[in-house]
């Protein structure tokens, strides 16, 4: 009956794990109680190993589990220290909020800012707050002369500064808590990669691309048979054994045929992302012999399939094409694509667009996208901008209304989107 001792605690822990996104059901909770009561474990590391094997079913889940475990199973001393730290942090925050109330004033009136932005001001570093204080001090004279005009100006400067800080804080939080460096890289925004991360990220991408290659070749080969008898062949082979069907023949599996057209943005705003996306493109271009790849910035350029065989040669090819690092004209690229003769788009074609939607002449691009959607069976947009930032970018809102858009800001998102496409 010792299972009862653990039941309440394990149920709480299971709830925490579910909150963190792990699939932990009643069976797992029951197993945890059963095993803890049976084995009488004393060592913390062993308890961790046992519980994680029952609740975390992949390497990624183990990283989440580790955080939850460390937060949940703490000694009395650690709990007291944690509580003291939280109380000190709460006191400091209260103090900062009072200071913020005093700072966020222009001409004696509070600057009208959203609550979340006020909170950003409270939590950002002292150096950043000092910058805003100095700016306020410099404009004090002007503000007294024309409070309405300068009041609006100060508000817009504050808003922009605080929004930038908010994004920086969000970027810093993503993936930073992961224990495994490879996993952290997998979940970090590609545009936030540091120079030192690039070789490790490239190795990671190569590994994922190899994995995709293996999946693709498996899908292409389609091992085994369909399970349906091939009567003609069976009867014909049966004649060899006097009409007795000793050897049965089966129909081969029908292979799915997909046609992909890839349109990849290699303009200035896509430099970092393109480097990684192109590596995935190599895998994607092997989906079927009928896939075609186009690159664009201000012009459209069809990629020579031989250049896709080797990644380094492909990168050189892109650089020498003159497209790399220029501005973006998606509208023109799509118009040129639709006007290709013989046509590259058709009802059985999936058009994949890799771009951040930052283009000149958005209305033209939207019209061209509608035409491409009419010609192609399906249009899917892979966007390197994190989904949480989409509401701030107007062109994304326009384009996402016209076609299906998937966020590919991290290597993990990029690979899982590729996999989804391949699975049809």
């Amino acid at each position, binding site marked *: 009956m010792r299972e009862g001792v653990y039941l309440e605690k394990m149920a709480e822990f299971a709830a925490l794990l579910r909150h963190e996104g792990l699939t932990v059901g009643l069976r797992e909770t029951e197993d945890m109680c059963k095993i803890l009561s049976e084995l009488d474990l004393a060592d913390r590391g062993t308890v961790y190993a046992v519980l994680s*094997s029952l609740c975390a079913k992949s390497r990624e889940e183990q990283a989440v589990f580790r955080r939850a475990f460390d937060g949940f199973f703490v000694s009395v001393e650690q709990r007291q220290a944690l509580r003291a730290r939280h109380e000190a942090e709460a006191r400091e925050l209260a103090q900062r909020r009072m200071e913020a109330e005093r700072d966020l004033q222009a001409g004696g009136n509070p600057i009208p800012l959203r609550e979340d932005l006020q909170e950003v001001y409270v939590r950002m570093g002292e150096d950043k707050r000092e910058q805003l204080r100095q700016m306020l001090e410099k404009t004090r004279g002007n503000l007294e002369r024309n409070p309405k005009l300068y009041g609006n100006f100060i508000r817009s400067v504050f808003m922009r500064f605080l929004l930038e800080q908010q994004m920086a804080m969000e970027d810093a939080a993503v993936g930073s808590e992961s224990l495994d460096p490879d996993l952290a890289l997998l979940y970090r925004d590609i545009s936030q990669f540091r120079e030192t991360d690039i070789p490790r990220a490239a190795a990671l991408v190569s590994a994922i691309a190899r994995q995709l290659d293996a999946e693709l070749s498996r899908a292409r080969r389609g091992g*085994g048979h369909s399970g349906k008898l091939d009567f003609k062949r069976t009867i014909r082979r049966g004649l060899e054994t006097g009409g007795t069907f000793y050897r*049965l023949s089966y129909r081969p599996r029908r292979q799915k045929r997909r046609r992909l057209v890839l349109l990849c943005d290699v303009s200035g705003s896509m430099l970092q992302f393109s480097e990684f996306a192109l590596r995935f493109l190599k895998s994607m271009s092997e989906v079927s012999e009928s896939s075609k790849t186009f690159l664009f910035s201000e012009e459209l350029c069809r990629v020579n399939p031989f250049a896709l065989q080797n990644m380094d040669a492909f990168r050189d090819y892109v650089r020498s094409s003159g497209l790399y690092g220029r501005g973006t004209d998606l509208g023109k690229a799509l118009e040129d694509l639709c006007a290709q003769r013989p046509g590259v788009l058709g009802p059985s074609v999936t058009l994949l667009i890799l771009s951040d939607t930052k283009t000149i002449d958005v209305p033209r691009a939207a019209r061209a996208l509608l035409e491409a959607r009419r010609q192609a069976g399906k249009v899917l947009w892979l966007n390197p901008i994190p989904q949480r930032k989409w509401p701030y970018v107007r062109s994304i809102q326009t384009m996402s209304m016209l076609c299906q858009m998937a966020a590919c800001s991290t290597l993990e998102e990029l690979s899982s989107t590729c996999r989804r496409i391949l699975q049809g």
Partner: protein
Amino acid sequence: MDISTLKQKLDAQGYVCDEALAATLLVALKLGRPLLIEGAAGVGKTEIAKVMAAALDRPLLRLQCYEGLDESKALYEWNYQKQLLSIQVQMDRTGPDALTKSLFSDAYLLERPLLQSIRSEVPTVLLIDEIDKADEEFEAFLLEILSEMQVSIPEVGVLRAKTIPFVVLTSNRARPLSEALRRRCAYLYIPYPDLDKEVAILRSKLPNVNEHLAVQVAQAVHDLRENEGILKKPSIAETIDWVSALEALGISDLTEDARERTLGFVLKSREDMEASGHCGACGHDGP
């Protein structure tokens, strides 16, 4: 059985493991849950099933997965040719109903590893090796046997396990496995061993190994694994091969020259060899 007993038994089989690993194995054993083991190639995933079979004194049944593996190769198959011959021989002697019934009996059933494991009178260790190489359809087919420990054969009905096998599934993560399969298993990820553990493994597998050489090789292999330019990281088996090769050549100190001459035992491609660079753990050549 408790953790330390299992650990002792694994040690006796020459498998170096810590208490946490032994605890995970014991949990899977006690709960009757299949154990899914992931990790890079050559870290000892398959070896776990072998040593567990030896430690628990159970027969080991192995199912090697590959593309196109289906239930006729994994579960059972009717001996079709034998059935046909039987029909021709017995057609005039036996009534049609009795003949039909006899055709779907144990005499014509070819048991494959999955069926063998659940029909065995003594508990077995069932190794389903490299499940990531099998098709997704096969993975779905495994769900019934892994969760209910039973299989359905249309001509016979449902066969329940006489004894619960200890099931070990291994995967190199060549493709992601389904959530349904993962949920039915206990999970273990085996990373590459740290330096101390690798030296302990060398001592266990090569009892007469030169201690200085073992440490040098373990450090050199550790450095190679850290090298991001090397695509195929050396496995534990390759470390053992390397030490064996060095000892066979009468080398007791891993110098840069000795390393160059024997590097082919750990790195198996020209690109990896070129990326390997110099060895920090190696001794100096000559005076």
